[in-house]
């Protein structure tokens, strides 16, 4: 820093001095002779001497500035200053380059280049030049008065609503992409990598409290939250005082149910028989149409779907007593309701599928 400065000999005061014209700075690194030679001086005299020292230095600076090439302006003479040589620290770190978005990174690997497109485009329908985006844009969906029906249209479907919804979806997708890109940028480059006007903030769930700005709690959300809060006691809210007009808690959730210790209605018997039936059904093929099942099995093995639509479903339906589709559900949960045969079918079907995968 100091070495970069101009060093000249000062004729009047003796010794060297430094000049930094960019900062209008002049320094003389010698103690003034008049002050250091030990002559007794009063405070006032010393003060005058200090100012005199400064004056000499400023005179040097002014000499240099007034001898520099200048341009004449209405207000006076203008001098172009060199850049400051006395370097001072920055107040903030250098701005980081914006990290690439996912698309930009992809485009770079693929060598896709951005094409410049004109702001205006010709609207065929309106027969005039219009903006490509924004208000009064070309082919604006909001301005379409009539949409012609097509052969494939489902009756009762609102094509305008469809357009609006598709737009909403596109916007939502873009928002999601933006968020993902920002998250990635923040992860890679820290806080400084995000644009200065954007921030990422954690949102809290409605139920756990914490205000979500711009989003009002709906009536249902409030009800849920109140319900959860009222049951968050040792007695699950049983002995709490109810407020006037307070409704019973919503969405209590599933709790454990205990069977009665003494039971006269054969409930215990029913449960046991259910288990037994389940076990027996594993080996019971009485309700199976073997031919159909084999055919279905072959189709699955070969990996070719049958020509008819839903070949797989047909394969499932090969069980005679399957009854409704519900009974055929692979989970087998709904099997409880159906008949014994149906149940066995469901199970067998499940087995069939497993074997076919092998």
């Amino acid at each position, binding site marked *: 820093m*100091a070495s970069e400065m101009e060093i000249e000999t000062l004729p009047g005061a003796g010794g060297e001095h430094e000049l930094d014209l960019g*900062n*209008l*700075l*002049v*320094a*003389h*690194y*010698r*103690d*003034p002779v008049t*002050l250091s030679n030990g002559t007794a001086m009063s405070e006032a005299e010393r003060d005058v001497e*200090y*100012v005199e*020292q*400064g*004056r000499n*230095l*400023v*005179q040097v*600076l*002014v*000499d240099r*500035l*007034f*001898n520099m090439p*200048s341009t004449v*302006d209405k*207000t*006076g*003479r*203008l*001098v*172009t*200053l060199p850049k*400051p040589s*006395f*370097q*001072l*620290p*920055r*107040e*903030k*770190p*250098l*701005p980081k380059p914006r990290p690439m978005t996912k698309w930009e990174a992809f485009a770079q690997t693929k060598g896709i280049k951005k094409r410049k497109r004109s702001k205006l485009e010709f609207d065929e329908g309106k027969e005039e030049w219009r903006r490509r985006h924004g208000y009064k844009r070309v082919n604006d969906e909001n301005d379409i008065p009539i949409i012609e029906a097509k052969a494939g249209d489902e009756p009762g479907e609102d094509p305008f609503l469809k357009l609006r919804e598709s737009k909403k979806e596109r916007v939502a997708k873009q928002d999601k992409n*933006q*968020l993902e890109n*920002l*998250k990635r940028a923040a992860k890679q480059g820290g806080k*400084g990598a995000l644009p*200065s*006007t*954007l*921030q*990422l*903030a*954690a*949102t809290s*769930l409605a139920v756990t409290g914490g205000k979500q700005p711009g989003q009002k709690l709906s009536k249902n959300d409030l009800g849920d939250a109140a319900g959860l809060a009222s049951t968050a006691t040792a007695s699950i809210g049983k002995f709490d005082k109810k407020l006037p007009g307070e409704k019973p808690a919503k969405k209590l959730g599933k709790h454990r149910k205990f069977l009665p210790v003494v039971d006269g209605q054969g409930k215990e018997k029913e449960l046991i028989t259910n288990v037994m039936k389940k076990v027996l059904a594993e080996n019971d093929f009485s309700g199976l149409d073997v031919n159909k099942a084999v055919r279905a099995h072959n189709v699955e093995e070969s990996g070719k779907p049958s020509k008819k639509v839903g070949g797989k479903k047909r394969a499932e339906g090969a069980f005679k007593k399957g009854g409704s589709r519900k009974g055929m559900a692979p989970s087998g949960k709904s099997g409880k309701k159906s008949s014994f045969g149906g149940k066995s079918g469901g199970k067998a079907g499940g087995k069939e599928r497993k074997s076919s995968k092998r």
Partner: protein
Amino acid sequence: MLRIVKPKTKRAKRELEKRAPKLEENSKKLLLLHGTKTTASIKQVLSDFYHLRKEGGKAIKYTKKNDAIRPFEGGGETSLEFLSQKTDCSLFAFGSHSKKRPNNLVFGRMFDHHVYDMMEVGIEDFKSIETLGGGRKAAPQAGSKPCFAFVGEKFESDPKFRHFKELIVDFMRGEVVETINLQGLDRVFLCVAVGDKVIFKHCAIRFKKSGTKVPRVELIEAGPCMNMVLRRNREPSTDLRKEAMRLAPKTSKKKVKNVSTDSLAGKVGRMYVPAQEVGDMALTKMKGLKRERRAEAAAKASSLRNKSESGGGDVTMGEAENEFAGSPNKKLKSKGT
């Protein structure tokens, strides 16, 4: 879950953009703060510094007592850093007074809203702008670019004094400019190193006639003037210093279209002038040019001719009418295009 938080108003957005790190930075802002205990003179020092820097909103003075700020102690910077963040100031001056350190002033700088370096000085023999009258007649213009003059061997040899010099320049230099009006050179910060003190004087510059191109300089004390006893200081760590001294990469200047330089005329610009529609221009209509008048005049002339030549008057009249049938506008248009 994360979500994007955007400024809700354009104004807020602009404010954030102003505060963002830039390649070419804004000039630094100064934050002036008071400790729990202050004296009249230290308060005056702070308000005088505020007065020197307030032009263009480059200084903010808070008058509340700050008991949480103890700059040289561990954990005493939190509040300072918060205030720096809040006000976007990267310079601070903290005035306090205690038995151990009477009339204490801490100068400090921030880098990325964290304390970069600091220097503590004791104020002695303070003369405010008010008592000195601000060099009333030749009072420096508010916000003008100051000069700096440093006298003394210690500003080169003593690291503490060197540090002080750097701080004073950073605090007072204001904006970095390319050109300066020579008439605008009207103030200087004069620092003389004497013993363990710095004699700090803010003087107004006056130009007197010298008989040559360069005027003779005269200095008038404008205030604030004081003696500063250098106390503790904290220099930045080498890492931080390296980070803060990083220079912006040189950018190649964008080519300016349609502007060239001429050795005679200097800067020459070519600009687009739309076609002038002279034909549709509204002109002042003179009575003499009205069709009836013209016709009359023509008739008169022809009749005069008839008198002198006798005969064929009708025909000439008809010809005259035809001649003036075209509107004057049309004629002009054909000329213009």
